[in-house]
């Protein structure tokens, strides 16, 4: 089996979960003997390449006297301008993006049709331009390479996937890691929605990262349920011995929220639950790590509830700080309103931290050794936190089983399910 795979980012140059997931998945597939040509908009040269080829779209030269290219360009012109389609971007950066200029149609056309295009590979203001150009390059790659199936990750690469399918006639599998509904709630960006829908509709099969996402794909995008298959994400096992000596410097137990402080992540429920717990037990500290558009509102609410001496904001944390935060935590809480999958509880469990997660997250479908509550049920959330802090049997149970459970969520196993999807697409 040979797969032409389109991604947008690849470790170490990642801004969010997508790159990490693609990397793990690719490694898992390679273990089972699948050959992969992985195309990214821009390769930096320092990416890990374990058994697969990484193609740099920036290196591909296009010949526009080629009629095919011209024709194809006409087809993909619909996805032109979008100002604030910036998935997985830190909200502070996002702020600066939206204030930047919109592109004119003419500019896109000109730059896209230059002979060689230098992708930034970022989620910048030229995102739509890059997506279009990426699709064009994809058609060129597809006509040169030989492969059995095309696999495209998230909407940024769907046009590329569609292009490759049209040129090669090979089956297309699109992989939905998140939908526009997860990113923007009900205020969806119509352009992105259209691209997503076109991608899913054109695809032979659609992979979703959870049943929750599968439901959205079926209901909101109107995709035939028969061709939507859930393959849950996994995690790469890592050992971090350097963290064992980490100590916290307060006596109280620490309860942590870590993630973007946006509506989707449910930070307000965390604050309300913290208040309830602190009413009963003052010997707890709550930490909200991350930033986002709701941050100031959360700070105001914490002040209003008069719990600011026990509730702390760290702002955005980077890689090693995140690990430190986990190492210091006694409970990790993810009260997401909507979460296609949600990898962070798995990282917490790997550090032996018990987790409370919302039932509205994809990861809740695969975890047994976690407390699950409805995101809106603040009482249940507070009760779960209190339970872990006070009843030692729970902590012991989680420590004993949690890490094992996470370590068993291997990409190797998820890859088997993906291969099954490939087979279904190829031999249907």
């Amino acid at each position, binding site marked *: 089996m040979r797969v032409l795979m389109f991604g947008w980012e690849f470790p170490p140059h990642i801004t969010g979960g997508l790159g990490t997931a693609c990397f793990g998945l690719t490694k898992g597939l390679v273990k089972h003997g699948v050959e992969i040509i992985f195309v990214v908009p821009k390769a930096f040269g320092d990416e890990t390449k374990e058994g697969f080829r990484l193609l740099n779209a920036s290196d591909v030269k296009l010949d526009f006297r080629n009629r095919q290219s011209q024709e194809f360009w006409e087809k993909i012109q619909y996805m032109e301008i979008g100002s604030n389609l910036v998935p997985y971007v830190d909200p502070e950066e996002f702020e600066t993006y939206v204030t930047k200029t919109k592109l004119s149609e003419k500019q896109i056309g000109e730059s896209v049709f230059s002979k060689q295009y230098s992708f930034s590979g970022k989620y910048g203001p030229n995102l739509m331009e890059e997506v279009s150009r990426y699709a064009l390059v994809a058609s060129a790659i597809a006509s040169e390479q030989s492969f059995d199936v095309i696999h495209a990750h998230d909407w940024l690469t769907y046009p590329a996937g569609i292009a490759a399918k049209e040129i090669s006639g090979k089956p297309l599998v699109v992989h939905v890691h998140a939908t526009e509904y997860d990113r923007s709630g009900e205020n969806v960006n119509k352009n992105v929605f259209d691209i997503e829908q076109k991608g899913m509709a054109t695809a032979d099969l659609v992979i979703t990262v959870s049943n929750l996402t599968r439901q959205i794909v079926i209901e909101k995008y109107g995709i035939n349920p028969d061709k939507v298959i859930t393959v849950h994400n996994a995690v790469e096992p890592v050992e971090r011995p350097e963290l064992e000596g980490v100590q916290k410097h307060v006596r109280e137990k620490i309860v942590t929220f870590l993630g973007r402080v946006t509506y989707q992540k449910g930070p307000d429920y965390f604050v309300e639950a913290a208040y309830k717990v602190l009413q*009963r037990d003052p*010997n707890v500290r709550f930490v909200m790590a991350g930033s986002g558009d709701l941050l100031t509102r959360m700070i105001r609410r914490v002040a209003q509830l008069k719990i600011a001496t026990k509730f702390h904001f760290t702002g955005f944390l980077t890689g090693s700080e995140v690990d430190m935060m986990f190492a210091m935590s006694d409970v990790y809480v993810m009260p997401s309103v909507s979460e296609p999958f949600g990898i962070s509880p798995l990282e917490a469990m790997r550090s032996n931290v018990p987790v409370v997660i919302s039932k509205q997250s994809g990861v809740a479908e695969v975890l047994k050794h976690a407390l699950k509550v409805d995101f809106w049920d603040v009482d249940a959330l507070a009760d779960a936190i*209190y339970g872990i802090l006070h009843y030692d*049997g*729970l902590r*012991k*149970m989680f420590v004993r089983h949690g890490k094992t459970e996470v370590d068993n969520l291997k990409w190797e196993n998820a890859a088997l399910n993906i291969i099954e999807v490939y087979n279904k697409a190829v031999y249907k």
Partner: protein
Amino acid sequence: MRSICLYFQVHQPFRLRTYRFFNIGQDHNYYDDYQNRHIIKRVAEKSYLPANQLMLELIREYGKGFRISYSISGTALDQLQIHVPEVITSFQQLANTGQVEFLSETYSHSLASLGNQEEFARQVLLHRNKVEELFGQKPVTFRNTELIYSDQIGSQVADLGFHTMLTEGAKHILGWKSPNYMYCNQINPKLKVLLRNFRLSDDLTFRFSNRDWSEWPLTAEKFVKWLNTIDKQEEVVNLFLDYETLGEHQWKETGIFDFFKHLPNAVFSKSKFGFSTPENLYQDLQPVAAISVPHAISWADEERDLTAWLGNELQDEAFAKLYSCQQKMKNCSDPDLLRDWLYLQTSNHFYYMCTKWFSAGEVHKYFNPYGSPYEAFINYMNVLSDFIIRIEEGNDKVIPTNKKSTAVKKAKSNHGPEIKKSDPSEKFKGTYRKLNFDDIIRLSDTKVKAIIRDVPVETLVYAVHGAGEEVAFKVEKNLGVRALRQYKELIKKLKKLKPSEVTKNRRQIIQELNKNNK
């Protein structure tokens, strides 16, 4: 005559309502009244009432030849009395026929046999009295919760005055032996032991309606044919079933009632078997051997062990905490506390915390009202925490002052800071809530500083002795540099203190506390 011993277990627990931690200390109503009422009414209607009616008709039809036995848990009896007393009446009618034996068990279908011998004996006595009061028979046969049995438990049951006990004919204790004989206890051979024939019993409880089962449909005639294939030497076939098998686990539509309706006729006309109660068997049969059960068994799951109720961290913590109350409950006379003490011991609460069903056991899932064992555990522990607070408060009321400080100290070391306790030696003054020693942690640092400034360091050291970590931290943090040094040195030198000294010094601080709080 060879015998069929038909025995039915009737049990319903008092299920707990969703009880959050903020209810602790405020709300002492633990039970989900709506659900409990709903379930007992449904089961009575679908199972108990029609099944009792059928049994009564069979006894009338076949006279002395048809005998059966029941064990009804105290929690089931209590709920039936409240919500569907007509079920009690129909059981009484069965009792009046003289052909029905009522067995004894622990009142609340508890795991007391594994937790505390004294409490076990108390519950058995309670249940025996209840059965005698309702059905006019003094039970002589014992059936422990979920057929839990070991040599040790059997011997204790014999000491309590029972002559026969039922348990599971588990493969691993029988080996090549057959369950179809009378056995006796290993330690005390006077106690006769009847073993459940799990293959034939489970054909009825689990497989009866399973259409994938090669023997489906199972008729009374076919069942009797199987009985006839049993070796002629073997004396008794023990069919021990959940009574809910009739009509609840196996719906009426599966034909389960028809099966029992036709069973006696098929047995009498096509076999040499008859029906006996455990007491009949006690009279008729001699034990063929002692059965050795060093480690407790039960009738649950493939393993026939205790892991459905005990063994994981959640269950073990809850169990240990529950039975740590026994000493205090021994002298308790508060009827509400006594009732909750019984109902909280019901084995079902521990069953809900079982993590085995993560891997297997659809049965577990079916009976579990909680989303996960973790939720079950948290809910139970919240309730238990409130219950423990009530015991502490109750105990403070009854224990004379000279013993009080020891009791308080013990309570503290056992249960940490969540225990609120009142100090009966000082009366309420005014309407404000009087602060106790532990309230120090709730005060602002400024206030604490003000209070301890006026108290000699020595007094502080004495008072803090044995107090929770939080209290100590709060005090230490608010001491001045010099005072803190002095304080630490004193602590180092401190030897064992008399509880009265601790109380005396605490009282001084409590006074300061309340002076400051006015």
